[in-house]
């Protein structure tokens, strides 16, 4: 189909933030948020959000849309892989990533699908993994509705690319994505990821951030004050004012796309 609506979804286990873009034009046709059914014990984390996505396509989309899904980092695992001189081919990189994830997460990692952002020799590469069942389930949901699942990307990676930071800067660049009860925080220097932590934050992202920063600095010998942290707040529960400084880092709130458009839509609906 030539003219498809574009359904963009930020998927978390509890809710879907979405916007529906027409094939032509920049203003969304519909913007909203859909709560998922409560998680039942023993079911995969993505089960309820998959069902909500099916409902979203059925109820809100015309015909067969193109679907772009941005996965909450709660569905994603990250590892930074040190450069190894003997690893060259894509198959070798895949095996290396599988081994690295199994080291941390055990046999569960066998059922994950992995991608590696392979860097030039001498620099570490970022790998991320998602449950293969989640990918299969979302593809089936889209296929059944004649929709096309065009993108399935981790939210941290999407937002980092969206802000198009100058990656060659010599000073460390801190970038974080905070969701309700979860924080993904990375630090990059000279086009290389130094450290990345993707952790639950049961007491909220604001309480979790200082400890994460201290641990990352200590374990990777990252210098102290003087740098900035660009922080994206995602999901309804992560709203709140951003502090001016955390652990010596000047904090800048970075927009997520969904947030800005939702606010604009809400403002417009209120007249």
């Amino acid at each position: 189909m030539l003219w498809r609506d574009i359904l963009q979804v930020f998927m978390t286990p509890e809710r879907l933030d979405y916007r529906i873009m027409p094939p032509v034009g920049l203003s969304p046709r519909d913007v909203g948020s859909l709560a998922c059914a409560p998680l039942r014990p023993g079911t995969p984390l993505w089960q309820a959000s998959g069902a909500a996505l099916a409902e979203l396509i059925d109820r809100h989309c015309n015909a067969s849309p193109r679907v772009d899904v941005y996965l909450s980092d709660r569905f994603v695992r990250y590892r930074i892989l040190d450069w190894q001189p003997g690893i060259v081919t894509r198959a070798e990189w895949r095996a290396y990533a599988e081994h690295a994830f199994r080291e941390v997460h055990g046999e569960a990692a066998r059922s994950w699908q992995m991608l590696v952002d392979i860097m030039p020799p001498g620099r570490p590469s970022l790998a991320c993994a998602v449950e293969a069942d989640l990918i299969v389930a979302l593809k089936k949901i889209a296929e059944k509705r004649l929709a096309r699942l065009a993108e399935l990307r981790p939210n941290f990676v999407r937002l980092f690319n969206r802000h198009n930071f100058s990656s060659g800067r010599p000073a460390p660049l801190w970038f974080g994505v905070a969701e309700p009860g979860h924080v993904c925080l990375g630090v990059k220097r000279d086009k290389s990821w130094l450290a990345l932590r993707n952790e639950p934050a049961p007491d909220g992202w604001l309480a979790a951030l200082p400890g994460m920063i201290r641990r990352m600095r200590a374990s990777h010998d990252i210098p102290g004050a003087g740098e900035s942290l660009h922080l994206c707040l995602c999901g309804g529960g992560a709203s709140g004012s951003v502090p001016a400084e955390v652990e010596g880092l000047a904090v800048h709130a970075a927009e997520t796309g969904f947030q800005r458009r939702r606010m604009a839509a809400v403002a417009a609906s209120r007249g």
Partner: protein
Amino acid sequence: MDPMNFVAPARRFSPVSWLLLAVGVAAGAILADRYLAAEETRAGLAFEAERLERQLRPAAVAAGAAVQKSAPAGRPAQQTFPWDDVLREIELATDRRVALLALDTEAAAGRTRLEAEARSIEDALDFAERLRASPLVDRSFLLAHEIRESPAGPVTGFSLQVEWNPA
């Protein structure tokens, strides 16, 4: 940084892509049409040039034969008769409406008899008129003409006598 897309990127054809494809196809079709038209014109011109060349060749051969017949080698008439100029005048006066069949020159008398075919008597008279306009020609007049049938339709066969001006 790599987009890390977990679904294989499918081929994307946006409306702009389709539009560009359509424009490309249309431009290609126009160019092909123009090329074919130009090729057709070129082939027509080549054919016409070949035909004219073929028409002139027997005239030149006949002229050579006439020289041999009327003035054997070494005779003064052959040396003084301006063959090149005469043949050039005949060639310049001949166009696509006239086909030369035979050419008989009496160099000593300074005259040439042409056997030719034209599409109509007007074309034959035009041909005689063009010859007459040449400074090399003293007189040019029609000796005879007749309508003949040919595979391409009726043609006018005619005999023309040209008297050259030696000055």
